[in-house]
C-alpha cells in the first residue's frame, strides 16, 4: 500500500514519468549511440534505486518507472550533463532514498566512520593482546 502511494505520488509529481498505456519511452530499453556516454549512464543507473521495486536498481528492473528513469538518465547524459548533477537533481526530487550512494552528511557520519573505527578498534585489540603475550 505504502509503495503504491509512493508510486502514485511520483506519477502526480512528475507527469513526464509513467503512464502504463503508453509504449516505453525511447532510451528506456535502448542504449546511447556513444559508448562512452552509455558507460557513464550505466555507471550512474546501477547506483539509483528503482522507487517502486524491492531492492533493485533502475539498471536491473522491469518496472515501468525504472524504464522512465533510465530514459531520463540517458537523455540528460546525452545532453552533456554530469552524472553527479543528475544524481543531485533526482535526490532533490525524491530524497536520499533514490541514491544507493549515501551522501556524506552529519546523519551518515557514523556510517562512513564505521569502517575506520572498526579497523582501529580491531587493531588495538589484536596488538594489545600480542603485547600482553610478549610481556608475560
Amino acid at each position, binding site marked *: 500500500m505504502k509503495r503504491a502511494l509512493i508510486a502514485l505520488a511520483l506519477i502526480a509529481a512528475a507527469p513526464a514519468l509513467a503512464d502504463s498505456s503508453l509504449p516505453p519511452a525511447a532510451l528506456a530499453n535502448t542504449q546511447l549511440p556513444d559508448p562512452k556516454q552509455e558507460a557513464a549512464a550505466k555507471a550512474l543507473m546501477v547506483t539509483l534505486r528503482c522507487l517502486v521495486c524491492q531492492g533493485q536498481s533502475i539498471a536491473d528492473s522491469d518496472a515501468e518507472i525504472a524504464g522512465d528513469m533510465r530514459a531520463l538518465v540517458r537523455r540528460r547524459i546525452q545532453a552533456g550533463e554530469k552524472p553527479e548533477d543528475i544524481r543531485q537533481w533526482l535526490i532533490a526530487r525524491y530524497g536520499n532514498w533514490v541514491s544507493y550512494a549515501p551522501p556524506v552528511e552529519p546523519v551518515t557520519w557514523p556510517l562512513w566512520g564505521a569502517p575506520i573505527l572498526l579497523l582501529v578498534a*580491531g587493531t588495538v585489540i589484536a596488538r594489545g593482546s600480542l603485547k600482553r603475550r610478549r610481556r608475560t
Partner: protein
Amino acid sequence: MIAEAGLAALWLAAALALLQFVFGAMALRPGGGALLGAVRPVAVVQGVLVALAFGLLVLCFLRTDLSVELVARNSHSATPWLYKFAGTWGNHEGSMLLWVMILGVAGGAVALLERRLPEPTLIATLAAQAVIGLGFYAFLLFASNPFARLAAPPAEGLSLNPLLQDPGLAFHPPTLYIGYVGLSVAFSFAVGALVTRDVGADFARAMRPWVLGAWILLTLGITAGSYWAYYELGWGGWWFWDPVENASLMPWLAATALLHSVTVLATRDGLRAWTVMLAVVAFSMSMVGTFLVRSGILTSVHAFAVDPRRGSFILALLLIYIGGALALFALRVGTVREGSRFDMVSREGALVVNNLLLSAILGIVLVGTLYPLAVEAVSGEKLSVGPPYFNAAAGPLALILVAVMGAGPVMRWRRDDLLPVARRVAMPLLLAAAALLAVALLAPGIHVLPLLGLVAAAGVGAASLAPLWKRNLRRTPLFTWGMVISHLGVAVSLAGMASESAFTQETLVASRIGETHRVGPYSVRLDGVEPVVGPNWTAVEASLTVRRGDGPPTVMHPQARMFSTPPTETNESAIATHVDGQLYTVLGKDDGQGRWQLRLWWKPFVTLIWAGGALIAIGGALALFGRIRRAGRAQRAERATQGYLA
C-alpha cells in the same frame, strides 16, 4: 488428520525440548549424575519428532490439502509437483518450520554423534540447544502455526509466487538454512564450554567438524542463491548487496573467521576467548538474518512475509539469546585462561589478521544493512545504502584479506621471519606482477578494483598451491588439500568477479524480426517470436540464431512468461555457457509496432564466480572428511592400545 498429527508432533517436540533443558540443567547440578544418560535420548527423539512434523507439512503440500490455510495461500492444484514440494518452504510458516526442524535435528545429531566432548560439556551444550529450540517452537506454535485449518476450504489455492517457481527453490533455501542453523551447534558448544569452564584445544577439535559442516552448506547456499538470482531476475546481476543477501553473507563471514580461529585453538591452544566469542557471534548473525528476512522489516525481493507482530517476537528472541550468551561470556571470560603465545610474524599472526579483516568486513556489512533502518526508525528519513558504499568500504579490505590468504599458509606456527616467507611467495608475486603488466597493456582504462582483483587472483591462485610445493602429494593430509582447494576457489571466484565487472559487454535493442545485433564476439539474429504454453503459464518465446564470428549457428530461446494465478510476468533468460564465458539473452516486451526488446550480454569468465564458490565448498568437504577420518583412526588406535594394556 495429517495436519493435526503434524501439529501434535510439533507440540511434543517442544515439550521434549523443555525436558531436554530441565534434565540437562539438573544433571549438571551436584548429585544430578543419574540424569546424565537421559539427555542424549531426549535430544534424539526431539529431532525425530520435529522432522516428522516437517514431513507431514510436506505431505499436506504434496496432496494440495486446501483445508490447510498455508497450503491454500501458497499452493495450487495445477502447480508442478516439484514446486508443490519446494513450496513447503516458499512461505513464512513453512520456512520457519524448516528452520526449527534443522535446529532440532542438529541437536539430535550432536547427541548421537559427538563422542569427543567431555560428558558435562556435551550435556550443557544440548541444554543450550534446547533453550534456543524452545523460543522458536513458541514462535511457531503461538505466532506462525503452519498447520492451521480453514473452516471453509476454498475450491482452489492462491498458488506459489511465480518468481519462486524455479528448481532453485528446491535447493537454495534448504542448503542455506542448514548452514545458518547449523551454526547453532557452534553457539551451543560455546555456551556449554563457558558453563563448564572447559575452553581448550580439545573443545576446539570437537567443535571444528560441526562448524566446517555448517560453513560448507552456507557456502553452497550463497553460491546457489547468487546463481539463481543471476539467471532468474533476467538482468545479469549476481550480487546486489541487498539486505537479504547481506543477511546470508554475515553468518558466512563470521563462520569463516571462526573456522580459522578454531584452528589456532585446536593446533596451538591460542585465541581461546576470541574463538568462543566468534562462535556466539556467528549464530547471532544467523538470528539477525532470520529477523531481517522473516520480520518483513525490509522491502526486498525476498521478503514474502510481512507481519510486524511476528517481527517483535523474533526481535525479543534475538535479544534474549544474544544478550544471554554475551552476558555469560562477560561473566566467564575472566576464567578462560589465555592460551599459548606467538609472534606477530607467524601462522597465528596471519590468522589473527584474517580474523581482524573478516570481522571488520562483517561489521561494515552489518552497519551498512542496519544503519538505514535505524535512521528511518529514529528520524523517519529514508536512506539507501548500496553497492557504492559496500564496494568502497569492504572492497579494499577484502583485497588485503585475499593477499594475506596467499601468504598465511606458507608461514610457520609460533614464529617465522619475513624474508623466508617472502622467498616462499616469490613465484606468486612475480605472477601477480606479470598479470598487472598484462592487464594494463591489454585492457587500458580498466577500473582500479577489477584491476586489483585480477592481479590478486593471479598471485593468490598461484600462492594457494604453495603449501603443496615439494611435498609428497600422496602423503599430504586430506585437510591440507582441502585448505589448498578452498583458497584456490577464492582466487577463482575473485577472477570471475573482476572479469565480469571489467569486461561485460551489453547490447539493449528494440528489434524487428530478422534483424541482427552484435554483442561481444557474437552476432544474434531475431528469427521469430512464438507463443508457448506450460503447465501453469503461457509465454512468448523468441528464436535467436547465434554465431560467434564465422562459427556455426546455434539457436537460443529466451521466454517471457505470464502466470495467471497470481497475474505475474517473469523473464526466463536463455544462457549459453562457453569455456570463456556466458552469452546471456532476455526477451522483453513488444512496443506495439512490431519491435521486441532484446537484452544481450556477453560475460567473459562469469562462471568462475560460482565455480570458485563450489571449489571453496569442495575444499571444505575434503577437510571435513580428512578430519573425521583422522579422528576415527586416533580413536581406534587408542582403543587398540587400551585393549592391549588390559
